[in-house]
């Protein structure tokens, strides 16, 4: 009798504790949502670097020194690449110029595709067949590039202070010949009510610094998470295993180990594969004559997006072609490479994809977590709705982790006769 009382009491206790913990963790997740991403990325980085630390440790380097070496290496890589990338990220004025240039080039390419000299003249067979439909699609695309009233005023101020080169001015005037209305964004409509252009340059730099500081203050947690996850010698695992009841102890450990192995292989494999694809595209773009900064940036984008099955290569290709459209004076390093940069990008991405499928993927065995294409598409779209850019990037790893955890727990629970 006494025993059953104790069972009831402990059930009530554990249930209350569980509900309380879930409520507290849920509340913290909502309140501290800005910290979730830095913490996740810290854990991810530590997890991926674990084999490197173990390798250095086996070679006789103390663990703390190995972590410091790795942290230093990461910082240098991020600093060097960051500097290169930041130098190609346009400021407000360059951004406007880039859009003018892109719109002009798009126009030219669109017209030449339809075999027209200008919008009034007769075109080729494509123009006869789908001219109107294509024009509508093209207008939709161009409307993302078109200026709104504020931007027009802003650009006019640059022209008035003669900061704009004659080439850009020519593009701008050409574009004005067939104006396209901009897409109205939500913040634009608010901006219309605000005072127009309160000293553009000063205001922008202030907000950039503020943005930078707020990003630093949350992301500063990442290196700490990274260090403490790496320093940990099984204490975290021990803690979780200690709260598991005896009956599930062996099963819990095995599940933990299997999930750890599968996810570790997947993440490290994906990282390796993405790096190789990014590197291939970077080298390829260099060979077809892209500037080194642009090649690095496109290589990084293509590499990162390559982690998304099916959609990744398209994103990489799109970025490359977008750049190829506005770039001028491309000069391939090797004489037999194509002069047309768009064709060049297409070739580079195709070669990278071929190498990825033929060599990189078979080398990286851990990526054997198969997802149905439908799951990928729905997952990535859902991710973008939930968390924007990060959602797109982290959707597939999250789905893979869930899949591995659930299937492993199911298998182990069956093996230990816990479920039927």
């Amino acid at each position, binding site marked *: 009798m006494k025993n059953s009382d104790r069972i009831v009491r402990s059930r009530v206790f554990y249930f209350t504790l569980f509900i309380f913990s879930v409520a507290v963790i849920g509340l913290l997740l909502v309140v501290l949502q800005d910290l979730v991403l830095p913490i996740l990325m810290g854990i991810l980085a530590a997890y991926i670097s674990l084999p490197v630390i173990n390798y250095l440790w086996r070679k006789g380097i103390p663990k703390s020194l190995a972590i410091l070496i790795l942290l230093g290496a990461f910082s240098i890589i991020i600093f060097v690449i960051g500097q290169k990338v930041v130098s190609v990220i346009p400021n407000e004025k360059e951004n406007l110029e880039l859009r003018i240039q892109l719109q002009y080039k798009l126009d030219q390419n669109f017209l030449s595709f339809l075999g027209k000299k200008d919008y009034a003249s007769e075109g080729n067979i494509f123009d006869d067949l789908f001219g109107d439909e294509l024009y509508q699609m093209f207008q939709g695309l161009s409307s993302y590039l078109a200026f709104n009233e504020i931007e027009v005023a802003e650009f006019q101020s640059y022209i008035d202070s003669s900061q704009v080169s004659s080439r850009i001015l020519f593009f701008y005037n050409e574009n004005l010949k067939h104006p396209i209305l901009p897409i109205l964004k939500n913040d634009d409509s608010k901006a219309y009510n605000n005072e127009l252009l309160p000293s553009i340059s000063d205001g922008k730099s202030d907000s950039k610094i503020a943005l930078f500081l707020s990003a630093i203050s949350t992301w500063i947690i990442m290196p700490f998470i990274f260090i403490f996850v790496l320093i940990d010698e*099984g204490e975290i695992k021990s803690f979780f295993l*200690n709260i598991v009841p005896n009956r599930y*102890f*062996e099963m819990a450990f095995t599940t933990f180990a299997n999930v750890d192995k599968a996810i570790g292989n997947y993440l490290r494999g994906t990282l390796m594969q993405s790096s190789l694809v990014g590197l291939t595209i970077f080298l390829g773009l260099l060979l077809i004559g892209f500037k080194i900064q642009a090649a690095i940036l496109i290589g990084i984008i293509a590499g990162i997006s390559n982690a998304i099955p099916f959609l990744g290569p398209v994103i990489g290709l799109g970025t490359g072609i977008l750049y190829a459209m506005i770039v001028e004076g491309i000069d391939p390093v090797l004489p037999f490479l194509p002069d047309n940069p768009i064709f060049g990008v297409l070739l580079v991405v195709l070669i990278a994809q071929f190498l990825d499928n033929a060599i990189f993927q078979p080398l990286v065995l851990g990526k054997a977590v198969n997802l149905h294409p439908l799951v990928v598409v729905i997952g990535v779209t859902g991710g973008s709705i939930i968390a924007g850019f990060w959602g797109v990037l982290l959707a597939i790893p999250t789905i893979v982790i869930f899949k591995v955890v659930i299937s492993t727990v199911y298998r182990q629970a069956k*093996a*230990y*006769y816990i479920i039927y």
Partner: protein
Amino acid sequence: MEDLVKTKTLWKDFSKEILTSKSQTLVDILKKIPLLSELSRRELKIISKFAYERTFEVNEFVFETNQPGAAMFIIKEGEVKIVKQNENNEFIEIALLEAGDIFGELALLDSSPRSAGALVSKPTKTIAIFREDLNNLLKTHPEIGGKIMMHLAIITGKRLKATTNHVMQMEKEINNLKDLLNEKQ
């Protein structure tokens, strides 16, 4: 003043005990196990990092027959019965193990199902060491892992010899009985 000194030394001893006692006793316990007896204290300290302590109540199973084996258990204190179920679903005791004994050590080799169950007959504390951790140890500290594996092989070999002797003994007895039966007929 004297009281203060006393309190201080008391606290010092107390904190010292808390800081050192756990790994000390764990290393001491591990040192007494034949499987790990050849390891130095430094090596045992490394092993103690992945030695998990569990407390079991009377009539609780540490593991049951046919479950996949993942860990070897060392009895820190208490008593464990190795049992097998007969056709009538009754548990037959095969062996009775006490503090310092190990069981389930074949799980360190592979995950084949447990050949018998381990039932706790007195409140028991065990230390579990998992195959997965031992495999990692073989990669990070091959010399320690190698010693354990070597000893495991020796223990398994001794048991095989003992079983072979046992089988031979039984065969002999069966033959004797057969002879006796033939003589009587």
